[in-house]
């Protein structure tokens, strides 16, 4: 049963222009996104830069103003509670950022960084708080020595783990991870991804995994949504998306992923160029007259794609 | 680009209104009134009262403000109580002197500061850089009047290279070349003093900009094209570093116009600054308010000038 739903989320930024700087148009950064989250599942949101995937994540957690749309949490409309301190929503939905370094106050010690959410949301005695912080460190595989250190004393991977520790401090239900590993080297990235999977299984967490890296998303996520210009063009299970893509944009994106098999690269290149050619020729069928994706159509119980309804073409 | 400029000018209108209101209210808050200075033991109190009535002293503030503004728009800032001439004439003559002083100073500031800033930035941490930085700190630390007096003593009295006060020789006839030269000769020493003091900011700013630009990727690209270092400096680093300095120009001019008080007093140069000081001494309200308004206006104008320069030189602003 899904515990959280996003309905028709829109984030529009006004474009000011003309002589008196009036609002002449909007940037449709996020334009009608609906998602729902089951407990213990990982959801991927992929797309190219500027498609609105990060804005979606920020809007869900309350870092961006929502233009329209609703957020339901445990059956309640929490759209206007997102920015309130101490709401259950704010405790249960946490975020991990791409640049863990700049998301931590450089003048605070690890102890205070990890204790901050605990102080905000749980009324614990100092002893209990300290105990919880130690637990968190254990979860992310670090020992107590680090408590008195400052963020700059850690490596990239360690900082990202501390960011995760901070996010799980109050036993959240959903963690929104915005490009959590893009800044990390391959071997460190593997470590962080493994670790995120471990805690997911152990604590029944749900993830919203925002990334441009289709390999990472495939590795991590059960359900994947592909975004293009503020709208979802296709969403489904991992198999739906990677093995049976229905929207032309998804196919194009998938064909562009480099593979580590040099033997087949010539064939892949041919396929890629075929897909690209196809995309140029047929893309008008997949977008409406304003270049926007169509509303999603159900293809199977799990698989949806933004296709023109038959007969409208 | 024109849109940006016109919009920017329009924004100045409410700014000017607020400025004039603040100036007016502050002037009203000052202790005493213009007639205080005229009172001698022989003055008839009734006569003073009569003058107050005449000058609108007892009108409600908004009536006074309205009268003052409408007159100001027509260039009429009233009469100077001490000089007994129209404020606009009084300021006009002085403003002319100050303007030329500021103009020559600005040119000198940039002529001195740009090469020094570029050299310091290019030869960062070398002797050249250290010397220039030392110079700029000394010129920053030295008070205006100290440097002014030293220059006056050395170049004016000892070496006799420059005249020591006034704006023009009394022997020069208007309209002749000699007259123009004499004017220039008179303002050169104050302008140099000024320039020496004004270079610090620009040298330091330009130096950091150059050091910053040196590290940019496009400089690496330029070097990877095989462009000789001198050309990399002139075509890439210099152009990009000068951008913020160009934007500085507007503010520099305003700063010079406003900051001329000490220099003009020391060099006996009859400009706006000197007038400002003497007007405060004699509580010449109409002159003070007019001058404050003018200075405020110039500050806004400086900002406008900077924005315009910026939008001309930076294609990222010029072309949306």
């Amino acid at each position: 049963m899904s515990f959280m739903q996003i309905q028709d989320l829109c984030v529009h930024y006004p474009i000011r222009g003309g002589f008196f700087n009036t609002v002449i148009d909007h940037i449709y950064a996020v334009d009608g996104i609906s998602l729902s989250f089951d407990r213990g599942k990982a959801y991927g949101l992929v797309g190219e830069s500027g498609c609105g995937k990060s804005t979606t994540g920020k809007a869900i957690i309350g870092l961006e103003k929502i233009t329209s749309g609703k957020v339901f949490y445990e059956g309640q409309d929490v759209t206007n509670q997102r920015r309130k301190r101490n709401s259950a929503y704010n405790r249960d939905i946490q975020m991990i950022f791409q640049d863990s370094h700049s998301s931590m106050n450089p003048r605070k010690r690890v102890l205070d960084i990890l204790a901050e959410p605990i102080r905000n949301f749980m009324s614990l005695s100092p002893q209990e708080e300290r105990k919880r912080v130690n637990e968190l460190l254990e979860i992310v595989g670090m020992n107590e020595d680090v408590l008195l250190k400052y963020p700059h004393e850690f490596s990239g991977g360690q900082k990202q783990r501390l960011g995760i520790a901070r996010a799980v401090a109050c036993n959240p239900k959903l963690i929104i991870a915005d490009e959590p590993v893009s800044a990390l080297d391959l071997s460190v990235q593997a470590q962080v991804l493994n670790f995120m999977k471990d805690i997911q299984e152990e604590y029944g967490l749900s993830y919203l995994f925002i990334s441009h890296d289709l390999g990472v998303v495939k590795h991590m996520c059960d359900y994947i949504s592909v975004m293009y210009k503020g709208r979802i063009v296709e969403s489904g299970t991992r198999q739906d998306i990677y093995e049976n893509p229905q929207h032309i944009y998804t196919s194009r994106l998938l064909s562009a992923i480099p593979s580590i098999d040099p033997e087949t690269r010539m064939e892949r290149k041919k396929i890629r160029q075929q897909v690209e050619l196809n995309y140029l020729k047929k893309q008008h069928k997949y977008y409406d007259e304003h270049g926007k994706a169509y509303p999603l159509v159900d293809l199977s119980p799990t698989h949806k794609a933004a296709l023109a309804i038959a007969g409208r073409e | 680009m024109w849109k940006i400029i016109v919009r920017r000018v329009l924004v100045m209108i409410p700014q000017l209104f607020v400025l004039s209101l603040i100036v007016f209210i502050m002037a009203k808050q000052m202790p005493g009134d213009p007639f205080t200075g005229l009172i001698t033991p022989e003055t008839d109190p009734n006569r003073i009262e009569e003058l107050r009535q005449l000058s609108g002293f007892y009108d409600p503030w908004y009536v006074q403000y309205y009268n003052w503004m409408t007159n100001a728009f027509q260039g009429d800032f009233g009469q100077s109580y001490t000089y007994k001439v129209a404020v606009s004439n009084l300021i006009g003559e002085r403003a002319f002197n100050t303007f030329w002083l500021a103009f020559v100073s600005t040119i000198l500031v940039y002529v001195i500061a740009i090469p020094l800033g570029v050299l310091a930035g290019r030869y960062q941490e070398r002797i050249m850089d250290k010397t220039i930085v030392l110079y700029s700190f000394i010129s920053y630390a030295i008070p205006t009047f100290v440097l002014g007096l030293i220059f006056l003593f050395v170049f004016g009295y000892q070496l006799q290279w420059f005249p020591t006060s006034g704006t023009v020789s009394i022997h020069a006839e208007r309209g002749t070349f000699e007259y123009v030269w004499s004017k220039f000769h008179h303002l050169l020493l104050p302008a140099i003093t000024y320039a020496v003091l004004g270079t610090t900011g620009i040298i330091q700013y330009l130096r950091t900009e150059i050091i910053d630009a040196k590290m940019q990727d496009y400089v690496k690209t330029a070097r990877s094209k095989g462009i000789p270092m001198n050309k990399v400096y002139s075509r890439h680093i210099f152009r990009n570093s000068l951008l913020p300095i160009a934007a500085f120009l507007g503010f520099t001019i305003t700063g010079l116009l406003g900051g001329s008080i000490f220099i003009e007093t020391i060099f006996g140069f009859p400009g706006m600054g000197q007038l400002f000081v003497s007007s405060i001494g004699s509580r010449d309200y109409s002159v003070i308010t007019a001058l404050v308004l003018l200075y405020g206006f110039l500050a806004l104008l400086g900002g406008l000038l900077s924005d315009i320069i910026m939008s001309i030189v930076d294609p990222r602003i010029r072309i949306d």
Partner: protein
Amino acid sequence: MNKLLSVKQLRISFRIRDTFYAAVDNVSLSLHKNEILAIVGESGCGKSTLATSIVGLHHTNHTKVEGEILYRQQNLVQFSENQFNKLRGNTIGFIFQDPLSALNPLMRIGEQIAEGMIYHARLNKTERADRVLQLLEQVGIPDPPRVVRQFPHQLSGGMRQRVMIAIALANKPEIIIADEPTTALDVTIQAQILDLLKELQAETQTGIILITHDLGVVAEVADRVAVMYAGQVVEEAPVEILFGSPKHPYTRSLLKSIPQANEKQGKLEVIHGIVPSLMKLPREGCRFAPRIPWIDDSAHEKEPVLHEVEPGHFVRCTCWRHFDFQEEVQLT
């Protein structure tokens, strides 16, 4: 084989508090005509340092370069800035990572491309302008006459990188050094740029040194690969061999840590420990030994060298013969 460039026992050291530390240590590589040599490794392995110092773009004040970089029977290590300027942008072109910051924001595209020709080619102004248009066409930019007058901020990321490639190609170089040329780009654009590079390379017979951290990119375009770890080349092989039968523990671990789109979900390989910092790098013995502590010390060479295990396939140290992943060791 037609050797364009060969690097022999190159050591590049940085000065940190009056001591020099080698960031690139005893590296020997060669680049042939009409091939893409990829140098791959994680941040801090010395790959970018190696690339920039080949053409003398490093900071001369704090860097010491020793060894040989042989190009046209000359040793570039001893070159002066003026001598380098005759090569750079002429017979050796360069492409950088972030095309936005690598282009001068105040200069028109046409001017930036033409600039390199002023110093190398004997062309007059109109010939240069024609060549610029021709280059833009060659790198697949639509409407060259318009783009020539535009500024970098008016172009998209992919178009900017095409402009960078045009700059590198301006004087028909023999060698192009591309430092992470697609890292700042989206995957679809990356694919386009890689295809373009490959096509241009085949067309012009250029030798390309491709610096990257992305093994996917390597597999897509490279002909030969050198894997670097802690300033040294640990494995070098033709691309099919490197991905088909990698030998060195580091290469094998890296390949197993990629969350690949084709593979089943499972645990990714995590390399034990962290990359040592430049100042703490072990200078003796196998540099990768601390990362595979379950392998016995006797498996490593005292002074590891590159061994040719099959024609064209070089592996450093002997530890690879005894290497198994930790989990596999524990299972048996």
